[in-house]
């Protein structure tokens, strides 16, 4: 039963990303052509909402659902991995028009050929794990 809330949050996430068409290859293409504000609007509103929420959590020392203090970990320091990893991710994002969230959402929606994208993504994750120690970070 504890997991039910995650199912609900995921469901809302899936509906919203589909209905705002952030899962659409076309919307990603349009975004990278700078021909619509739509995707930029989504991302900026999400970040603005997030910034306000995180500031409220930090300033008022809001406790989490279990009554524990909420700790938001800082991302690891680094430069190379973020630029290069980000660049590689961006190439894939624009090619197949979906980031990891939408990959699952589209498969759930019945777009079976997206299964190949998932296969590729799992393979890519595996290759990263395999060569992790040899890559510059």
């Amino acid at each position, binding site marked *: 039963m504890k997991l039910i*809330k*995650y*199912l609900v*949050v*995921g*469901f809302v996430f*899936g*509906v*919203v*990303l*589909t*209905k705002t*068409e952030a899962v*659409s*290859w*076309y919307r990603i293409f349009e975004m990278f*052509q700078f021909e619509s504000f*739509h995707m930029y*609007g*989504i991302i900026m*509103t*999400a970040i*603005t*909402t997030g910034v306000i*929420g*995180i500031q409220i*959590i930090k300033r008022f020392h809001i406790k*989490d659902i279990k009554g524990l203090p*909420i700790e938001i970990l*800082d*991302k*690891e320091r*680094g430069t190379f*991995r973020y630029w290069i990893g*980000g*660049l590689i*991710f*961006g*190439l*894939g*994002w624009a*090619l197949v028009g979906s980031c*990891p*969230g939408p*990959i699952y*959402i*589209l*498969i759930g*929606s*019945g777009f079976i*050929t997206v299964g190949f*994208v998932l296969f*590729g*993504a799992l393979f*890519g*994750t*595996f*290759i*990263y*794990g395999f060569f992790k120690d040899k890559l510059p970070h």
Partner: protein
Amino acid sequence: MNILTSTWHWSVSGFIIGVVMLCLTYFGKTFGMSTNLRSLCSIAGLGKKVPFFNWDWKSQRWNLVVVLGAMLGGFFATHFLSDPSNVSINPATILKLNKLGIDAPNGKLLPEALFGSDVFQSPKKLFLLIFGGFLIGFGSRYAGGCTSGHAISGLSNFQLPSLKAVIGFFVGGLIMVNFIFPLIF
């Protein structure tokens, strides 16, 4: 046109995505979708061969439940809340797609030119889908996160590494659509 079946406004969706991230933070978790790819690799038993997959993926089980919910949400929205007016992108964009030989949306979320069921007869399409996925999987793990982990969670918390990653995402995307698309389509 119904308010639920037409394309949802970016402000509404952006706000809800932000709230989704904050909900998970309130539950004591971190919003990030690409971590599930690592979990799936571990479930497949790769932890025996590669130490990176030998981790406490069970602590991320909640995240797989989010994925399951998202899949159900996608199914619900596609089958019960869609409308032919959806995906009405900029006509100038459609013109560019035309030049690349990619079909216009006409209400569809994905182009047939890349995701059509003839993928089995087209090694090129099959390769593009798998290769695109490969770049996403490899890149997100290398960068330590994807759009949800870096662009939404990271930037909301003013993380400099996330800003670098997000700039990388956009540079990569711009290179792909402007320089590589004309070569492959």
